[in-house]
């Protein structure tokens, strides 16, 4: 197995992530997010998780991003929003968060360095959907149920929040 795809996908993912958080126009950011997710799918593939890679593409890059796109469309953003966004992204704003993020990065890196050296096999053996499926519906069936509950609550709450959106705020409070 070659390590070239992994490195390529990793570089793309990192660059795409940085592009996502620096875009002034949400749609651009979304596009970079798609790039990020796709390259992450590649990384997964390289790590021997084809099932996860597929899910990443289908659900994330597919369903979730579409959700985002719909919302951006409904928000009806324009030039003024972009200008305001630029204004919000003045260089000074970045200092504090950047320091914090760098600190976190450093801390995590040191943690990684402090891990004991890997004693496992050098070669990666792909883990197919079958193994995942057996695991899911074996010992982890309860968490599957939980996940389904979570999705259900997400659905219900999204529906509730989003319903009656034409009326004013007070209307929902009464509901």
């Amino acid at each position, binding site marked *: 197995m070659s390590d070239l795809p992994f490195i390529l996908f990793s570089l793309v993912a990192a660059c795409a992530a940085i592009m996502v958080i620096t875009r002034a126009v949400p749609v651009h950011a979304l596009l970079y997010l798609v790039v990020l997710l796709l390259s992450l799918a590649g990384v997964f593939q390289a790590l021997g*998780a084809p099932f996860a890679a597929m899910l990443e593409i289908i659900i*994330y890059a597919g*369903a979730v991003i579409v959700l*985002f796109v719909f919302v951006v469309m409904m928000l009806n953003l324009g030039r003024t929003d972009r200008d305001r966004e630029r204004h919000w992204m003045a260089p000074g704003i970045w200092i*504090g968060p950047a320091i914090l993020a760098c600190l976190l990065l450093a801390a995590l890196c040191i943690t990684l360095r402090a891990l004991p050296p890997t004693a496992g096999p050098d070669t990666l053996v792909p883990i197919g959907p079958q193994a995942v499926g057996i695991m899911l519906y074996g010992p982890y069936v309860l968490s599957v149920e939980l996940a389904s509950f979570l*999705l259900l609550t997400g659905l219900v709450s999204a529906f509730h929040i989003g319903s009656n959106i*034409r009326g004013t705020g007070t209307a929902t409070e009464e509901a």
Partner: protein
Amino acid sequence: MSAASPTQALLLATILFATGLLGVLARRNLLLMLMSIEIMLNAAALAFIAAGARWHAAQGQVMFLMILSLAAAEAAVGLAIILRLHAAGRPTLDADTGNRLKG
């Protein structure tokens, strides 16, 4: 040795997580903050996948599934809230005005 080692994948996850955090902290637009959170979730997912690869265990991908469903639910609810706020007269989606709980 192979470059696609779980350790390097973890390094990538770390970088992504820090980038996502940077986005959450620096951006005032709720939509962008939500996207940054997606990045962070993905970083966590990547860490799980890498760990699964390291130990040859399927649990990593199981956890990925969990994170996936969590991200989906979170995106759904978050976007609904954004829409709601927008509809209630907050067209700028400024997170810093979120402390005004009233619409």
